[in-house]
């Protein structure tokens, strides 16, 4: 049985030669001579049929009809514009997110971790934005600029004086609570010291709205409206908030 089956099996090369018509029946393996002749007959080139002009005309008409159908063309090319449109929309979204994030970063309005990353990234391309370490930046009226040093705070001689004093007098923590170590209160103490007064004496002259501040003195803070709780005496990012529970940096 196995021998019978094996008898009709050819190797790949012989099978290829047989099927490609390059094997002559005389050279065929035993038992395959007739098959070789059969396959050669099947592969014999067909005599060229007379040109079927009608069919060729129909083919040409189909080509022309297909080319002149804009709807069909649009149908076949539909994926392209759709892909392009999708790519454009994606690009716009990405650009919007980038510019939006950059805008927020420049305004210092991102959460501090993101702000820090944004500052690092944007600094590589020459754009300066707040770093996210709040004590390191000062918000000015023209936007944000890097602060020169880590201990700069509200000016106790400026409009922030009332707020600072108010916060100092109401805040708790004192020396043991490290309240006095905050940048704002350190500045206040230094200003009082420079005036040869204690903080309480120095603060007596403070009035809401900073009316006692010297004319033309510019504050870095936004506390000129003189809110009584003193919180707005500080830059809007809230560093050294007036309750003075210590250095909040």
């Amino acid at each position, binding site marked *: 049985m196995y021998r019978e089956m094996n008898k009709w099996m050819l190797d790949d090369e012989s099978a290829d030669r047989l099927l490609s018509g390059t094997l002559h029946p005389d050279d065929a393996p035993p038992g395959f001579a*007739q098959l070789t002749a059969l396959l050669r007959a099947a592969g014999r080139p067909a005599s060229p049929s007379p040109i079927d002009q009608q069919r060729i005309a129909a083919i*040409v008409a189909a080509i022309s009809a297909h080319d002149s159908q804009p709807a069909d063309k649009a149908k076949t090319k539909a994926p392209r514009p759709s892909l392009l449109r999708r790519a454009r929309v994606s690009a716009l979204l990405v650009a919007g997110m980038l510019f939006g994030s950059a805008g927020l970063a420049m305004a210092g309005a991102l959460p501090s971790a993101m702000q820090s990353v944004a500052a690092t990234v944007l600094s590589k391309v020459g754009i300066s934005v707040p770093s996210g370490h709040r004590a390191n930046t000062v918000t000015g009226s023209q936007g944000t600029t890097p602060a020169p040093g880590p201990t700069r705070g509200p000016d106790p001689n400026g409009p922030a004086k009332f707020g600072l004093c108010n916060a100092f007098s109401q805040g708790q923590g004192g020396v043991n609570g490290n309240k006095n170590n905050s940048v704002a209160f350190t500045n206040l103490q230094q200003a009082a010291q420079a005036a040869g007064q204690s903080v309480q004496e120095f603060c007596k002259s403070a009035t809401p709205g900073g009316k006692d501040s010297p004319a033309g003195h510019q504050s870095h803070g936004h506390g000129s409206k003189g809110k009584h709780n003193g919180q707005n005496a500080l830059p809007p990012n809230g560093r050294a908030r007036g309750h003075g529970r210590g250095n909040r940096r």
Partner: protein
Amino acid sequence: MSVGLQFESVLIAAQSGAEWAVAVLYRDLHPAVLRYLHAQEPREAEDLESETWLDVARSLSRFRGQEADFRKWVFAIARRRLIDFRRQSSRRRTQPTASETLAERMPPGDAEEDAMEGFATEAALARIATLPHDQAEVVLLRVVAGFSAQEVARIMGKRPGTVRVLQHRALARLARDIAKEPVTP
């Protein structure tokens, strides 16, 4: 038969609707396509071939490639038409071709001399058509269209190894069947 070096310019002309170029492509491939279809569906071959060429015409403007690619493409379309037809036929539950019909297509008197000197092409194709569909298809694409096993695999969407297995089975079956036939003195 092939168009040869001028294929590219002929193709461009045909894509623009030049009748002479369409005639060149048609004349080159029509006999083999028709024979391929006729061997498998003798009654429908003409219609299937017409549909094949109309499909070719509709998609010709998008075709890019060399002559060998064009041949593969046309045969792939012909094969799709054939498969569609068979699928529709099976839904309509038509009767398969009776064996008597096949016998009618065989030329009278299959003497050994005839076999050795050359089967009539029709008889040879009819014999191949008795194989299972996939085996017959492999043999026809290889013998009639002249494709390699790799090209047949690509047209049929099968692995080359599968095509080789199919062709081995087909050859073994044909050889065995021929050997079983009584030799006419």
